[in-house]
């Protein structure tokens, strides 16, 4: 690739106090190019726009400036940090007729890969991590919308995942705008755009974000598209007019409970049929809410908080199948659940009783502050304890204290133990754990 900014050059830019050194080009697209740069000893990423992109989007600079002043809604966003324009010394070094501008952001840390790697089946990732990533995505949009902002163009292309943890990063935050103000040119990406935007009946905002968010969560959870069922099969050439019909003129959710005419094809759309039954009913209901009633009525779409609650609850009831080891999510109310993978019956698991909710004792499941205090907002990034398998004694489960305070454990022998920070205790003889946040009780 030919780079707009010469690699190795030191540029004097307005908007930052120190000179910026261009280390290397990282990538480029139709909007511009991204570079790894160093400013005052710190490595950052710099996105530089192409003139055609600036010409198409006259309010880009103003939006970026406002986003920088507003600061990032959460750590999930690779948010613009500073807007930079070329100083007199830098002008002759740019390989563009019109100098334009760019913005600085954090570099994407190693370990994060494009979400398309997961949807394309190239990634080793577990259901736990995929559900956590979906929760984090809903949480990030929750924070964005609470600031009165909207994203407008979320798609697989601007989401990155860390497969080992399920952490996410949202890139390309340059379309972010105050909701309802419409100071921007982007409409969205077909396939993720709400039908009213694709059909030109409305402009993108927080309500259309909710549609795109549901599409993205659906694609993460199922590796399939919510609107591609039998209706897709009659399309020979999947081009722009065909996408418009599928996603805009006559969209129909493949799992619409009333109209079954767009169900997935057992061969072509196997991914959807295999993955949909994995997830608990409350998650399925939110998809129905968004893609059925909410298809034409934007205000009926599932809200970010509803997604967070349903996804966090699914994680709480995660249970490993005793027969095949697969992750399953049976609800405590289900009378005789079967494993979605091998079909074996799932025996009732041990469930930890917390002041607010039940958490199934399965390796990897975590206790969070919101389990102890209903007033705390849902978050998964500060767990207080984690269920773990004993490293050598197979089948033995323990609970590790991840807090910085000591807990008191009461065993069925009447014995009491102190469980210090970082220590794990065997769940088998445990009756109760007393923590400063509240008690964890086990069924007798």
């Amino acid at each position, binding site marked *: 690739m030919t780079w707009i900014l010469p690699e190795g050059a030191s540029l004097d830019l307005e908007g930052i106090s120190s000179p910026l050194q261009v280390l290397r080009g990282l990538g480029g697209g139709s909007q511009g190019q991204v570079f790894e740069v160093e400013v005052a000893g710190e490595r950052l990423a710099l996105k530089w726009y192409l003139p055609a992109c600036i010409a198409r989007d006259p309010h880009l600079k103003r939006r970026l400036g406002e986003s920088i002043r507003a600061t990032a809604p959460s750590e999930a966003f690779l948010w613009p940090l500073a807007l930079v324009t070329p100083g007199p010394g830098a002008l002759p070094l740019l390989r563009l007729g019109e100098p334009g501008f760019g913005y600085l952001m954090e570099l994407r840390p190693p370990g994060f890969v494009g979400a398309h*790697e997961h949807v394309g089946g190239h990634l080793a990732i577990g259901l736990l991590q995929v559900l956590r990533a979906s929760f984090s995505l809903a949480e990030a949009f929750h924070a964005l919308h609470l600031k009165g902002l909207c994203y407008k163009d979320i798609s697989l*292309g601007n989401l990155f995942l860390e497969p080992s943890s399920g952490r996410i990063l949202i890139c390309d935050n340059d379309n972010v705008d105050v909701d309802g103000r419409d100071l921007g040119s982007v409409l969205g990406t077909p396939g993720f755009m709400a039908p009213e935007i694709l059909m030109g009946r409305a402009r993108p905002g927080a309500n259309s974000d909710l549609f795109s968010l549901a599409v993205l969560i659906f694609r993460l959870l199922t590796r399939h598209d919510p609107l591609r069922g039998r209706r897709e099969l009659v399309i020979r050439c999947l081009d722009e007019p065909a996408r418009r019909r599928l996603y805009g003129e006559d969209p129909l959710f493949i799992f619409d409970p009333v109209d079954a005419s767009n169900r997935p094809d057992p061969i072509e759309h196997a991914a959807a049929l295999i993955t949909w039954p994995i997830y608990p009913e409350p998650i399925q209901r939110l998809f129905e809410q968004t893609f059925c009633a909410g298809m034409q009525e934007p205000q009926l779409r599932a809200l970010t908080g509803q997604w967070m609650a349903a996804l966090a609850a699914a994680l709480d009831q995660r249970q490993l199948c005793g027969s095949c080891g697969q992750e399953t999510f049976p609800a405590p109310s289900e009378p005789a659940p079967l494993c979605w993978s091998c079909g074996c019956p799932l025996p009732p698991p041990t469930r930890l009783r917390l002041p607010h909710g039940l958490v199934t004792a399965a390796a990897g499941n975590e206790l969070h502050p919101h389990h102890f205090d209903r007033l705390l907002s849902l978050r998964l990034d500060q767990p207080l304890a984690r269920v773990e398998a004993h490293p050598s004694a197979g089948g033995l489960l323990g609970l590790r204290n991840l807090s910085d305070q000591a807990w008191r454990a009461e065993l069925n022998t009447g014995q009491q133990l102190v469980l210090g920070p970082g220590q794990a205790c065997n769940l088998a003889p445990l009756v109760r754990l007393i923590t400063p946040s509240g008690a964890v009780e086990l069924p007798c």
Partner: protein
Amino acid sequence: MPFPNVRLANRPLHFIYICDCSGSMAAQGKIQALNQAIRQSLPGMAEVARQNPEARVLVRAVSFADRAAWHLQQPTEVQQLQWLDLQAGGITAMGEALELVAAALQSPPMEERALPPVLVLISDGQPTDDFDAGLAALMRQPWAQKAVRLAIAMGHDADTEVLQQFIGSDPGGGLPAGEIPGASGRKPLHRSGRSPRRPLQASNATSLAQYIQWASTAVVGAASMPASRMAGSGPQANIPLPDLPPTLMDLTDDVGPLVW
């Protein structure tokens, strides 16, 4: 436990190079430049293919000189593709080349369901056979009508009229068909009036490489998975084409000498 071993059902995206290998391509290193440009573009093309889980990108190539023949007949996944050099020599059987492509776009062998094919015609001269018959045979195929058809004129002797006929009319209007900015022999400016719906003028190895790169990455991306849409974008064909590569100014001599 791993996520179930399933993935989004994908559709084939057929990408066909149609390359002029007439004797004039042997002059001034043009055929070498074309081989280089295609070979250099493959890693980027493979990366785009990977980023588009909806598409299975399959590459083929036709060469034409005295006769037209498949240079790469088997639709080959771009990740597996090794480019064998084209050799130049002969006249310009462009019409016959289009007939070969027409036969390949017939169903069968074309799949029942696919993404719009991408056809890239590269030429430095004038057809010496019945171009009109070849084009007519091609355009009888529904998949050819749906295809994204691009043309690259190498040097200034290319017949931009026939290249424009291959592309079809430019819905954006502007310059009359066949007339391309910079085709007058002066150093092309590539500033205004450039359009992917007109023949792309590659006046040197650098611009050829840029256009090949653009066709094999940005256009493949647009044909397989839609990109962000902006308000007020003009009339849309069946696939909205991405911006052409930007015109970067040559600040130093690091772009290499002009090859022809």
